[in-house]
């Protein structure tokens, strides 16, 4: 019953997409519209009823899989939409086929969800945080649910970079999906050493520097909250490797902009924002903190507004690509982050409830572009950023009557 209804809804989205396409209005965003004659013909031929726009309904329902089954012509039109994005345009390139990534720590090493998810259709996989030596992680319990989110304090449990390379390198090498290794450390030397070992390993497509994980209870100042330390670690890793280098920002700072700028200046290819917010949960009997590590990192829909704000701020001070992370659970969230200046998004906590979400969001973004008459999702990027002021005013004066 429910599944049947779902097909109809999905169909409607598609119909309205085609309809809009057929009476295509040129240049709404300054791009010449894509001519899709085949699709128009299909829409006419199948005589599908036009219906009221249903928006984002395909994702909302409980666990019912997305079951879009476009015809060949529609599939061709969808395939023409370019979702590719380069996260390291100035440094050899890290081209993803989809701007939907999975966030570090939520997808393991890409193999764990293999039975239920087609991992090859994800834009890229950011693997579990990897350190120089094996780490046992924090004492349990390590996760708990909070309103609209979850707290975790895994403590960077991982087998160490060498074991990761030995165990997963050969697997990743056979994959189409790029794997970005998330790197964590306690000193600049740690980061540099891990980056060196990863350099040149087949199957490793890039490095994401975790300079902000609030879980490692070392007491020291985090790299991510100190502009000079963030700059130093980024520059050191940049010198150590030719791999595309992404750096993940912490939201636990007063002003993230100087840190983001320092990271860009130090040679990062892209910025990921944001890591988890530092938080706390109390045990049921209220005698101690719930998590074994006392503090945890908050993730999930609860942090989306914070992530949006930081992406919005960072997008105005850096020119390298921004990968947004923070509470993405549906296409609207993706579009929000794109509008605030991100070129790609990572899905994290939502995977736990809905493992197929990263793949489905790619499909939905494609369908949304088709509906808008776009050949690429790039015109959707940065639309909510403030219009630049300053220089154009002089130019405007020239034409003033």
């Amino acid at each position, binding site marked *: 019953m*429910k*599944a049947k209804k779902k097909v109809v809804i999905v169909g409607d989205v598609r119909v309205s997409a085609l309809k809009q396409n057929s009476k295509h209005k040129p240049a709404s965003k300054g791009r010449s519209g894509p001519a899709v004659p085949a699709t128009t013909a299909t829409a006419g031929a199948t005589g599908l009823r036009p219906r009221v726009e249903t928006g984002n309904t395909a994702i*909302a329902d*409980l*666990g*019912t*899989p997305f079951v879009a089954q476009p015809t060949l012509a529609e599939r061709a039109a969808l395939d023409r939409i370019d979702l590719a994005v380069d996260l390291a345009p100035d440094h050899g390139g890290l081209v993803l086929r989809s701007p939907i990534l999975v966030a570090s*720590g*939520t*997808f*393991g090493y890409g193999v*764990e*969800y293999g*039975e*239920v998810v087609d991992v090859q259709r994800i834009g890229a996989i950011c693997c*579990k945080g990897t350190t120089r030596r094996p780490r*046992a*992680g924090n*004492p*349990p*319990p*390590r*996760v*708990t*649910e909070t*309103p*609209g*989110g*979850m707290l*975790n304090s*895994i403590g960077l*449990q991982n087998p160490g970079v060498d074991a990761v390379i030995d165990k997963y390198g050969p697997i990743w090498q056979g994959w189409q999906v790029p794997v970005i290794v998330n790197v964590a450390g306690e000193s600049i030397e740690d980061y540099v050493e891990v980056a060196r070992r990863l350099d040149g390993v087949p199957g490793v497509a890039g490095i994401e520097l975790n300079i902000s994980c609030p879980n490692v209870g070392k007491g020291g100042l985090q790299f991510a909250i100190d502009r000079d330390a963030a700059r130093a670690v980024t520059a050191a890793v940049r010198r150590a490797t030719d791999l595309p280098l992404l750096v993940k920002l912490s939201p636990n700072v007063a002003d993230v902009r100087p840190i983001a700028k320092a990271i860009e200046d130090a040679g990062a290819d892209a910025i990921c924002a944001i890591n988890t917010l530092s938080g706390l949960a109390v045990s049921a009997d209220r005698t101690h903190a719930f998590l074994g590590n006392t503090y945890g990192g908050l993730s*999930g*829909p609860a942090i989306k507004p914070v992530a949006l704000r930081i992406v919005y701020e960072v997008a105005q001070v850096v020119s390298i690509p921004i990968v947004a992370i923070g509470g993405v*659970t549906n296409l609207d969230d993706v579009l929000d982050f794109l509008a605030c200046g991100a070129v790609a998004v990572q899905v994290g*906590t*939502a*995977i*736990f*409830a*809905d*493992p*197929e979400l990263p793949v489905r969001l790619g499909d939905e973004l494609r369908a949304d572009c088709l509906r808008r008459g776009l050949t690429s999702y790039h015109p959707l990027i940065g639309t909510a950023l403030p219009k630049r002021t300053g220089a154009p005013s002089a130019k405007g004066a020239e034409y003033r009557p």
Partner: protein
Amino acid sequence: MRLVAAELVESRQILPGQWLQSFHAPELASGSRAGQFVHVRTGDYSGLVLRRPFSINTTDAATGIITLHFRTVGRGTEWLTRVREGERLDMLGPLGKPFEVDSRSRHLLLVAGGLGMAGVRMLADEAIRDGRQVTILFGALSANHVYPSTLLPDEVEYVVATDDGSMGHHGYVTELVSEYEAWADQAFACGPHPMLARLAQLAAGRRERLGVAKLGRKRGGGKVDPLGSAAARRKAFLQVSMEQTMGCAVGACLGCTVMGVEGPLRVCREGPVFASDEIAWPDR
């Protein structure tokens, strides 16, 4: 492991705050083993971002029905009690490692504390189907928290202990174990952590205390099964089903670990069933 749309067919409160729900999910009913669990997605709209893990209480391959037994402890389980018959829930499963019964074991001792019954309930069905004798030792706070014997197979010997003495033995269920440990070939337990720790303590000293010979022939030149393997669990006297707050349930997030003697163990992947000597119990 697969994503399944399970339709709720029956929901009833069997004890104060404890519910038994039946779902039509043929894939789970025929493909699951005792000790495994499902990860159930809760309603998106209520701000619950994590799935909830539940032991598979019983399965019936013929009708495609599985049952889940749970207590309302928070918003997720309360939401679950309000699901109406005919609604479909998204379940990921079957997950985790099952109980391993040695083919030569005739007498199985199942020890359950409170909701731990849900962890071992299916094993009773499996064992009786295979012609073994099953005794369930069950511990609860008081008589009105005792799992109804009508929900158990007739062949099971059911022994109850209550903390307040309102039914059966007055005291902890672990105090009953000594009467059965010589009879039992293998023991399986699920319940509160202190109960499992006590049982592990008892199990560790069992061989010396009873002077029992090691099961099986002395073959293979003292080959030791690696800790955590199915063979090692099968040879262990006591297997425990552990619980922990859980994120992904597939081994990706490392959120549900318990401390093992060789380092952290993921309850969702290496467990939830462990041989008792795999776990670093606090007393040891």
